[in-house]
């Protein structure tokens, strides 16, 4: 599945090299191209029904995301073949960019990754809600509320940062609440981290959440983890 951005002439040579290398490695398949108004969901699902067992997203994080939206079963293997400007997934999955990724594809190290879900929308990396008043409900056990406006992130898979590391193979998501704090000596952020399998977040007003880069409007958000929902090809340099 080629990203629409790869129609640009500057990628022609790299794509030709990739196709040659794949042929040398004995990897054959059907090529489909994404386009602005062409949704890949039906196309990919038709191919899977027709017997396709591996779908390769050629492009970047967004290409991979569109492929994952279409692949809802736990049998089909998905892979990212990075070409062009990249986001975080390339390094997280340990996939080298361009032709070098063909050899990683050929090695076929398949990992079963957890996927996050918010209001029925799936995500691999994270979902963000910025600067608002909200309450977190952890089943009937407890509620949690920041005492002033804070940002909320629900994370499945991310590079190590101020909120530590999150593994996409532990069967949990992480709730991260960031509260900025200002004083005479500068500013810092207090970070709460709660691992969970299922939570419900209610906001004071309708807001826009960012789910792996896509917008999702709502007032109430139901988050849950779907363990081992995705079979993904990874490289040896993967970050988990």
């Amino acid at each position, binding site marked *: 599945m080629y990203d629409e951005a790869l129609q640009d002439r500057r990628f022609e040579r790299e794509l030709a090299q990739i196709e040659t290398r794949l042929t040398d490695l004995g990897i054959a398949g059907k090529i489909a191209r994404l386009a602005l108004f062409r949704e890949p969901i039906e196309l990919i699902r038709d191919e899977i029904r027709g017997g396709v067992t591996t779908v390769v997203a050629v492009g970047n994080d967004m290409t991979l995301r569109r492929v994952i939206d279409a692949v809802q079963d736990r049998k089909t293997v998905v892979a990212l073949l990075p070409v062009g400007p990249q986001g975080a997934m390339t390094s997280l999955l340990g996939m080298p960019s361009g032709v070098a990724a063909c050899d990683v594809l050929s090695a076929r190290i398949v990992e079963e990754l957890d996927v996050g879900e918010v209001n029925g929308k799936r995500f691999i990396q994270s979902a963000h809600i910025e600067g608002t008043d909200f309450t977190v409900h952890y089943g009937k*056990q*407890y509620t949690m509320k920041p005492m002033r406006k804070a940002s909320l992130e629900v994370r499945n898979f991310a590079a190590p940062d101020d909120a530590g590391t999150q593994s996409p193979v532990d069967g949990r998501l992480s709730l991260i609440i960031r509260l900025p704090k200002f004083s005479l000596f500068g500013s810092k952020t207090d970070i709460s981290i709660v691992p969970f399998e299922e939570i419900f977040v209610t906001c004071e007003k309708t807001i826009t959440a960012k789910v792996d880069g896509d917008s999702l409007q709502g007032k109430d958000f139901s988050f849950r983890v779907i363990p081992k929902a995705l079979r993904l090809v990874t490289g040896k340099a993967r970050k988990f």
Partner: protein
Amino acid sequence: MAKGTGPETIIAFGVRLEGDLVAEGDLVIEGEVHGTIKTKGDLRIGDQALVEANIEAANAVVSGEIRGNIIVHGKLELFPSSKVTGDVVTDILAIGPGAQVNGNISMGAEVTKGKKRTESVDAS
């Protein structure tokens, strides 16, 4: 200190939690908790924390304020800034100068085991 089996949970300053906080891993409380706290791992209560809860943990280090009973199966360390209003049951206790405890203190491995057994019988 022994580590719990699950991932670490952190409740930072400025966050208020109400209800029963049960964790498999270590717990760090810097904010407010009202309810109960139970972890198989270690517990750290920071100097800005306010905890109105009954607590059970493997080991605990306390710098903040606790209003509730505490059961610690291993070692409980009360730092000089800590203030505890409630009964304390622990195997090993270390109290810094200036730490306040207003309640009964019971110590020794047998006491913590007995406390756990009594609570299990009560629960059933």
